[in-house]
Each structure stands twice: as structure tokens, then as C-alpha cells.
């Protein structure tokens, strides 16, 4: 069971009050993009063992989207951060590095 804190309304609850929205920080490739980029955008997803970044929605609460960083093996939540960003904040990445030295995720490390 994940315990998430919504950065929008500040509520901490277990995951059933939220709804997972899949992988975070996707780059959208639409009309005009190459077939390879479009295929990647539509179908290719990370499936890491360890550090992962996801989108979540506080569906039973304030209704807003946010981001979460967590470990897929231990379900430890490293932190949550606003939806209005294209990459995880520096301080969160530093915190993850302390707990999971050498972690990588896509082109982040």
C-alpha cells in the first residue's frame, strides 16, 4: 500500500484515495513527428525495478494531478511534487540519490 501526500491540498492518504496516471514526464509526439517517436510516445514505457516517477490524481479529494517518485520494490514514496514541471525537482533527486545510490531513470540519474 502506498501512502501519498497530495502536494496540492496537503492531504496524506493511502493510494485508494488517488488514481494512478502512468509514467511521468512523457514527451508528447503528435502529428508531424517521426513514426519512431510517435510509436515510443504511444507504446514504450519504463518498467523499472526500483526508482520510478509517476503521475497520480487525487481523484477522491481535490481532483488535481501531481507527480510522485517511489520505489517499485519497496513501495517507499520518496516524495511528491507539482504537475506543472517537466522533470523531478533537484532536491528530490538528491534525496533519492542518498537512499538509492547510482539510481537511473530514463536520462535522469
Amino acid at each position, binding site marked *: 500500500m502506498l501512502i501519498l501526500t497530495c502536494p*496540492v*491540498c*496537503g*492531504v*496524506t*492518504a*493511502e493510494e*485508494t*484515495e488517488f488514481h494512478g496516471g502512468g509514467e511521468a514526464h512523457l514527451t508528447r509526439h503528435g502529428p508531424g513527428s517521426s513514426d519512431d517517436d510517435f510509436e515510443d510516445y504511444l507504446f514504450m514505457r519504463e518498467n523499472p525495478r526500483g526508482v520510478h516517477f509517476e503521475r497520480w490524481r487525487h481523484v*477522491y*479529494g*481535490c*481532483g*488535481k494531478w501531481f507527480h510522485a517518485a517511489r520505489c517499485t520494490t519497496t513501495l517507499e514514496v520518496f516524495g511528491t511534487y507539482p504537475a506543472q514541471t517537466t522533470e523531478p525537482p533537484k532536491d528530490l533527486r538528491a534525496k533519492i540519490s542518498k537512499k538509492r545510490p547510482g539510481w537511473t531513470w530514463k536520462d535522469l540519474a
Partner: protein
Amino acid sequence: MSEPMTAGADGGIAAIAEAPLQGMITLRGDLSDDTIRAAVKSATGQKVPERGMINTADGVGVCWMSPDELLILCAHGDVPDKLHQLQESLSRVHALAVNVSDARAGFILSGPHARDVLAKLCPVDLAPDRFAFGQLRRTRLAQVPAAFWMLGEDRFHLICFRSQKQYVSDVLTVSAQPGSAVNVWSKTISGT
């Protein structure tokens, strides 16, 4: 609108009653906007609440629902006037005020075990020092969305969608059925 219903079994661990008709207006907009804050103040006599809080007095008040949404509470019959007043004062700002009084149903839960009755159904830390008078919590109640706040010690006002009223009534009745006391938070409240 529909007939008030009664819920809860005789001998249940908390009293459950359908709340009287409640006027409710959803107000969406930039809550830091001075015009909106002034309009809320003049419609309710209350300030825009802090995040996660509710400001009420004598059945008139404001609930913080999300960073761009408030729920205004007032007497059911006062809604048309209040709505008109809000729409007049907000005509020049980007905001939306809608009468949602009959979209929702309400319940009053009371008794020393009321906190436990909610705690059985919602993923909320209901420790008395974590959820107290003045706070408002939107959450999941069993399988449906709901929100609640405290009216006083051992008394909760809960709202849900009206289409789910029967379900909420049934699930509250089960949670409060006779012999189902769990004495988790009730100990701290009632001292028993």
C-alpha cells in the same frame, strides 16, 4: 429534492440522520483574487478558508474544496439570492458560481463512536489531533466520494452525491451496526 430518510439501526453505535436540506453553491475561480475574496465575505460573512479548512457560523459558511474551488453553505431558501449577489459581484472576474444544493445529500453522524464509524469507511487519519473541528476532508467513503467536517465534538456533517444517498446510508448503517464498536478513537473522545 426527496423525502428525508432515516438511517442507522436501533441500538447502533452512532446516530445517523439525513441532514436537513442544505443550500450549496460551488464557486470556482482564483481564490487569491481580491474581488472573489470580497464576494465570499459579503455572501457568507466568512473569509475564504485556509487550505483544507471550513469557516462557518450559524449554518452559513465556506468550505475549501481545491485550490480553485469553494463550496458555499447557506439556508436552502437563500440560494437564489446569494447566487444572484455572487454573480453580480463577480461579473468582471473569471469565476463560476452554480447552485448545487440538490446535487448532494447530507448526513449527520453523532455519538462518541461517530469518529470510528467514519474511520472504518474512509482512508483518513481520524485521530482527534489529526482531524478536528474546522477541518474539511474530501475523501473516499467505501466506494464513493464524500466530504465531511465537524459540527462539534462527536458530531460530523457528511455530504455525498444525491444519486449515491441510498448507498451511503446503507454503508453508514453497516459501519454503525449494533455491537460493532472498535474503540479506536472513541476511547480518546469519550474516555470509555
